[in-house]
Structures are given as structure tokens and as C-alpha cells.
């Protein structure tokens, strides 16, 4: 296939997938008697209509991208971290404790300190799963699921106990929440009247850091090697267990930072429900973004739009709130299915030959025994490998 043909093909597949996802959504919308056209129009365009909507998309994208970056580090290192939810909570606890304790510190010191504390909190929680896996072989899916529940309980324990805002006791409201973060710990808002905060720069900065970490440093090289084929990595002198733990520490640290940035930039105190679903949506964003920072940033914006847009359909198109889950689920299923057509050379080969047959033209024969295209490794965990198909063996020799 030539370049424009390939583009058209990919576009067609993506459109088909989107149509399939919207079709599933439409069935459910029809079942609840909603105005399908209006619902979709609201989801996809309404948030973009004003500054508040646009900034709110970004506000969601910040923690999503941070979590997704961390998850990408873990996945690349061969470990399936579904514990971002719990790690985020632990990050929030550590961050808020630090910010409250350090209220007297000047802003340029306190803000980084609090964020680092958040990272440390998340890292500890992620590290537990890492150590359990590396030292005792406990499956990380299991341990991270369990650790999520444990973290949630620990979180409420602290918020309604040792860390509760004393004022809540005085007034008797009893809301489980900490005191407000000191002003010196706040991340500044960028546009008045909106919640867009400087955490955006942190997210973008860290995306670049993650890119460099994974693809430009030896540590990243080793982590990826350990994740891609532990046996080979061990053979090459990589201490695989150590890198597993490091990867989980980092992954947890990112989730912790997501929590820290979220409370310093948005909520400004630790309350319940902050993590709500970010941990899981973060996994989806990470995989959607191809486990690569360059994909994760746009993916997080897309999911920010989707989350916000779907919320708005409730009030503007009279659709039950759960519809957002339906759409997210349908989109995920459709897109991951479509990737098969986009990335798989075997399927493409078959399709293009079938098409050629259909239009009565013979497919150009591949030179016998030559390699004109290497198998597209995009199914492999490393999208960086998915470069342009190489030239033929004859030419390169």
C-alpha cells in the first residue's frame, strides 16, 4: 500500500471503530429514549464551547496523564499495575501531611516538597506490590487490587481520625477531610475564573521526562529489557528483580504525584472521592496512548473530553449518568479491536489482496524469498519499534 492509501485505510478503520462504539452507545441511548443525535453532539462538542469547558478538560487530563505515565513505566517493565487508585490515595495523604506540616515554608520550597512527598507516598504503595512480586512472586494484579481496597480504608481512617480538620470536630460537621492546604502549597491557577492550574506544566514536563527515562537512559533501557524478556535481561546482567521494584516505585510515584497535583491544584484539601475512577481510566489512557508519552498526552485530553462531555449529557440531553461508562467501555472495545486492522500486517495483507481481487487487479508479487517488510512489531509492547517498513533485503545488503 502506498502512503496515501495507507492513510485512507487507517482513517477508514478508525471511523468504522468510532461508528461501532457510537452504535453501541446509540442502542443504549435509544433504549432509554434519549435523543441520540443531541447526546452525541453534547458529548463531543459542548465542553469545547467555552473556556470553562476547555480548561476543565485539561484539569482532568492532568491527573489522568500522570497516572498513565506511571502505568506506562510499569507495563513497559513487564508489570501490570492496576493499583493506581490506591497509590494515588497514599500520595494524597503524604502530600497533604507534608503541606500542612510545612505551612511555614516559602512557596518555592513547599510546593516541590509536597509534590515529592506525594510521589513518595505513592511509591511506597506501589513498591509494596513490586517487592511482593520480586521477592515472593505474588502476582501483581492480585496484590494491587487488594492494596486498592486497603488504601481506601486507610485513607478514610486518617481523614476521619488523625488527619481530620479539627474544625470539623468543633462544628460537629464531622466531614472526613483535612484542613485546607496552606496557600503557600497551592499550585497557581493560570486563567482567572477557571481551575486550570500549573500542574499542566508538571504533567507535560514529566511526559518528557518519562520519554527520556524510557528511551534515552540506561535505566529505562534496562527496565524495558526486563519487561520485554526477563530471561534475556537477566542474561545480559540486568538485575531484573531490582528493576521490577524500581518500576513499581516509579509507577506508584507517578500516581502519588497525580494525587498531589490534584489536591494542590484543584481541591486544596484532602477529601473523599478524589481518586474516583482515575486509577482505572488512567490504565485505559496509558494503553490508548500506546504506552508512550507522546500518545498518552493526547489520549488523556480525549478522555478528559469524554468524561466531561458525558457528564454534560446528563443535564443537557437528559441521559443517565452511567451513560459515560457505556461510552467509555464501547470506545475501548471498538478501538482495541480496530488496532488489529491497523497494526497487523497479516490482516492488512489479506485485506489488500482481497480488495485487489475484488477490483480485478493482481496484487504486486513480493520478490521470492525477500523481505520487503518486517513484521510490524506494534503488537509487541514497544511502539517505538513500529517505524516505517524497511527496505528490501536486496537493497540493504
Amino acid at each position: 500500500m502506498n502512503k496515501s492509501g495507507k492513510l485512507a485505510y487507517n482513517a477508514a478503520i478508525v471511523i468504522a471503530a468510532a461508528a461501532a462504539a457510537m452504535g453501541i452507545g446509540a442502542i443504549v441511548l435509544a433504549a432509554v429514549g434519549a435523543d441520540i443525535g443531541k447526546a452525541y453532539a453534547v458529548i463531543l462538542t459542548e465542553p469545547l464551547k467555552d473556556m470553562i469547558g476547555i480548561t476543565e478538560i485539561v484539569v482532568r487530563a492532568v491527573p489522568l496523564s500522570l497516572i498513565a505515565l506511571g502505568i506506562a513505566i510499569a507495563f513497559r517493565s513487564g508489570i501490570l499495575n492496576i493499583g493506581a487508585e490506591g497509590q494515588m490515595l497514599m500520595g494524597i495523604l503524604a502530600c497533604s501531611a507534608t503541606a500542612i506540616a510545612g505551612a511555614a515554608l516559602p512557596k518555592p520550597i513547599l510546593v516541590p516538597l509536597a509534590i515529592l512527598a506525594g510521589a513518595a507516598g505513592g511509591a511506597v504503595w506501589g513498591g509494596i506490590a513490586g517487592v511482593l512480586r520480586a521477592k515472593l512472586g505474588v502476582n501483581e494484579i492480585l496484590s494491587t487490587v487488594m492494596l486498592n481496597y486497603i488504601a481506601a480504608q486507610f485513607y478514610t481512617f486518617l481523614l476521619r481520625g488523625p488527619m481530620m480538620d479539627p474544625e470539623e470536630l468543633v462544628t460537629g460537621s464531622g466531614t472526613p477531610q483535612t484542613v485546607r492546604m496552606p496557600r503557600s502549597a497551592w499550585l497557581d491557577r493560570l486563567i482567572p475564573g477557571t481551575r486550570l492550574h500549573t500542574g499542566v506544566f508538571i504533567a507535560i514536563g514529566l511526559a518528557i521526562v518519562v520519554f527520556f527515562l524510557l528511551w534515552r537512559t540506561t535505566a529505562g533501557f534496562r527496565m524495558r529489557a526486563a519487561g520485554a524478556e526477563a530471561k534475556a535481561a537477566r542474561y545480559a546482567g540486568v538485575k531484573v528483580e531490582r528493576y521490577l521494584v524500581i518500576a513499581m516505585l516509579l509507577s506508584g510515584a507517578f500516581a502519588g504525584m497525580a494525587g498531589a497535583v490534584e489536591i494542590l491544584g484543584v481541591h486544596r484539601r484532602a477529601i473523599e472521592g478524589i481518586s474516583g475512577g482515575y486509577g482505572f481510566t488512567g490504565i485505559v489512557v496509558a494503553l490508548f496512548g500506546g504506552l508512550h508519552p507522546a500518545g498518552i498526552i493526547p489520549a488523556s485530553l480525549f478522555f478528559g473530553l469524554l468524561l466531561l462531555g458525558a457528564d454534560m449529557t446528563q443535564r443537557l440531553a437528559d441521559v443517565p449518568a452511567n451513560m459515560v461508562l457505556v461510552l467509555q467501555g464501547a470506545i475501548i472495545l471498538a478501538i482495541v479491536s480496530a488496532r488489529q486492522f491497523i497494526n497487523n500486517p497479516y490482516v492488512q495483507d489479506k485485506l489488500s489482496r482481497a480488495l485487489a481481487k475484488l477490483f480485478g487487479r493482481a496484487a504486486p508479487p513480493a520478490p521470492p524469498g525477500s523481505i520487503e517488510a518486517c513484521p510490524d512489531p506494534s503488537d509487541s509492547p514497544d511502539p517505538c519499534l513500529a517505524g516505517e517498513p524497511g527496505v528490501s533485503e536486496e537493497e540493504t545488503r
Partner: protein
Amino acid sequence: MGHEPIRSLELRGITKRFPGILACDHIDLSVGEHSVRALVGENGAGKTTLMNILMGLYQPDEGRILLNGSEVRFRSPNDAFDHGIGMVHQHFMLVQNMTVAENVALGMKSSHRPFRLDIGAVRKRILEVSERHDLPVNPDALVWQLSVGEQQRVELVKTLCLGARFLILDEPTSALTPQETDELIALLSKMSSELSIVFISHKLHEVKALSDTVSILRRGRIVFEGRTEDQTPADLAALMTGHDVELPRVDSGGAERPVGTGMLSIRELCVKGDRGNLALDGVTLDIAPGEIVGLAGVSGNGQREFAEALNGLRGVDSGSILLDGAQIAGRCAGAVIGEGMGYIPEDRNTEGIVPSFSVRENLVLKDIGGEPWSKAGFLRLGAIADNANDLKERFDIRCPTTDTAAGSLSGGNIQKVILARELARGPKALVAVYPTRGLDMGAEEFIHKQLLARRSEGVAILLISEELEEIMNLSDRIAVIYKGKILKVVPGKDASKRSLGLLMAGVVDE
């Protein structure tokens, strides 16, 4: 299974494409009754693909299959089985965590009762077949507990149990010891009086010994077809590769080296195996700079543990290993690598390379932590790329670009990647385990030449292999390992196949 006997089987104009590659290009092939047809060709020539088509595993893009003159279509291996065709695949097709009987039952549809698996019937059939063909197997053994040779036997029994009377054997000997190979060849020639056989192998003397006719495949096309007895192995090799192949030999030149000045000196090494047994039991061995020591032995006698212990991948119970004077026993893999050890591992696909990494990345896998591939923890992509282009050239690694995922290369090219990495590091010592297993003659020649070149540069090489020919061709001295002990070390020029074979079986004749 009362189907008609196979008198002739013909493939006509079989063509098969994979994305970007024409694996079989209008191939014609016919096999008669009670004959052995050898199919040879370089790695990637299309042999396996062609046979998979015959088994109904792949659907051909073009071409027909004729059985006894009438056209048949095999949509799944079941269709092939129904016509009495069976195949022993190149890679084991055994489910490791099931028993031998369960593996056979998987294909034996007659044992599939509605709510019950008639494992008794399967067991009976296995014993029947193994009795008849003198292929001892234990139906209740778990496959992962069997040695490679035993697994190969199970594969054969399995195929026979399914009623095959037309047998396809895809490189059945590549993992066998010489004895096992000889036994298999003898068995097959006996069986060829009842069966038709297609035999694929890279070992041309086996082809000579067993087959009646030979077809040579090159880049998806049949380039030669004829009677085996009219060709010498050298002719066949030349036809296969398109040029003369001559496996190089070491020239020991009688240079006596003073004992004890080993580049690699191993003293009283004891190492535990996976099951806690003593896999290596007091091994002492010296390898001088510029010397190749061949370690001969039936696999499973401690070779793997030995190689792993030498490379820091397995703990050492007692004893010492000195590499150029530095103690490396019990140190981690990274440290051993740092001391200048090179290692060509047995399992090239998952140990020697990271399959999803590019060729380029794999070529610097071991040394990524230091100059020149990285600086202060950051990779130097330019240097890494230059290195890859340079090695691709020098080692004739055939890949579209050095960005290609290494796992998509053929076995021979993967081996070249490993070789290139290990040799370009300029190691002081090198452990090479089965370096040419499954490779074609051209690739084998190349690898042997490289090993000899390193030898003359002063590298101490430990060559672990079951190929006596390979060991005898390349080694200055040959050590024979048996049950974790070195039975004897003999000068290479004094060794004979017979004497080595006896030693490998544990017979010491002082």
C-alpha cells in the same frame, strides 16, 4: 481408520505468501509409496511452510494437493490425519504441563467420549505403538520432566498413535544427541518399508543415510530434485547455498600450552541443579588464551548448569572460577560480564535476545551501562546506530534495517546478532552453547569461522555441543562431561567419534 493407503502424494504449484514475503513459489513435489524424500534448504527457504500447507495448517494461495491422483483440500490438520498424514514439527508441539498420554489424547479423537476422556485407551495405544516401533515412552510422565530426546520420541509416538502412514519429519534430529540421532535414523529406515516419509534436515549426512530422493529448496523455489545417492553432501551444500561450503577445521599445530596458565580456570566447581541435585560435581578445567576447549556430552549432564554458573546466572556451591585471575564464582551476571566473559546461550530466542527490541538495541544489550553506548546514564543513540550498521555489515546480519525487531529474524540471523554482540565486545573468554543448533550449513560455516578467528586473537573459548563433528573440527582439547563430572580431557587431534561416544556414555577405559 479405514481409509485408502497413500500411494502417491503430489503438490502442484503451491504458492504461499506472508506479508512481504513469498515463502513458497509455485512448488511442485511428489512423494511415492514407501519412500523417503529429503527436503533440504537454507534457513527460511520455505520447507516448514510447505509442510504446514500439506498438513492443512496453512491454506495455500495457489496450487493443489493430489492424493492418489485426486485432488484433496485440507482445511485443518484433522483432514490430513484422516488421510493418514502426520507431522513431527520443527518445534515441539507438546503441552508441557500435561502428561504424555494427555498430549496424545488431544489428537486422538476416538478417545473423546461425550462426558469422559478415555485415557485408558490412549495409554494402551501408546504402549502398543512404543512396543511395535521400539520407542520406549512412559505415558504418565509429565512432558516438562522429560529430556529433549525423550520429548522428541514422544512426538514421534504421538504422530504414529494418530495413525500416520505418511510421515513428515521437520528437523527431528536438531536437538538429539549423536546416539539418539543414529537410533532415530535406523528406526526411520526400518519404518520406511511401511510408511512414506518426508524428512527435513540441515545435516546432510543424515539425508544421505536415510533418503531415497532429495529436493532442494531455495528462497521458496525447488532448485534441484534427484536421487540422493548421486550426490555427495558437499554437492548438496553447494546446491543449497549457491556456493561451495567447507566447514573450517582448527589447526592445533601441536602447540603445547603450559598447564595452569588458564585464561579461564575452574577449580573443583560444584553447582546445584533446579531440583536441588548436584548438577556439577567438582569440575576442574583450564582454558588457555587462544584455545578452544570442546565440552562433549549428552545434554542434561550438567552443561546448562555449567554455562550458567560460569556466567553468573546460577549460584555456586563451592569451588572457584578465575577469569584472567579475577574470581567470578558466585558473582552476579553483570559483574561476570564486566570481567570480560562472553556467552552464547543455548536458548537464543528468549535468552540471547530481547525479541521485541530492535537489532540495534540487542547489539548493545550487555554494555549499555557504560561508554561508548551511554554517558552519565544517557544513551548515545548515534553511537548505538553506527555500531549496529557496522556489525550488520561485518557479521552479514540479514535484516531489513537495524530497527527491525530482533525476534522477527530467522534463527540463523538471531544467532549472528548474538555472535556479533558477544564477539564485538572483545571478550577474554567465551562460552558458546550449541552455537549452530538448527542452522543451515552456510550459517554454520560462518559461525565456525568466527570462532576460529577469535581463537587466533587469543580468546579462551569453551564450546559446548553435542555435535561431535563440530567439536572435533574446532577444539584444541575436548573434555567429556558425564553426570556432572569431567571424565576425561583429550587433545582434539587424538579424539575419535567412537572414543568420544563411549566416554559420553560414561565408559572410561583407562
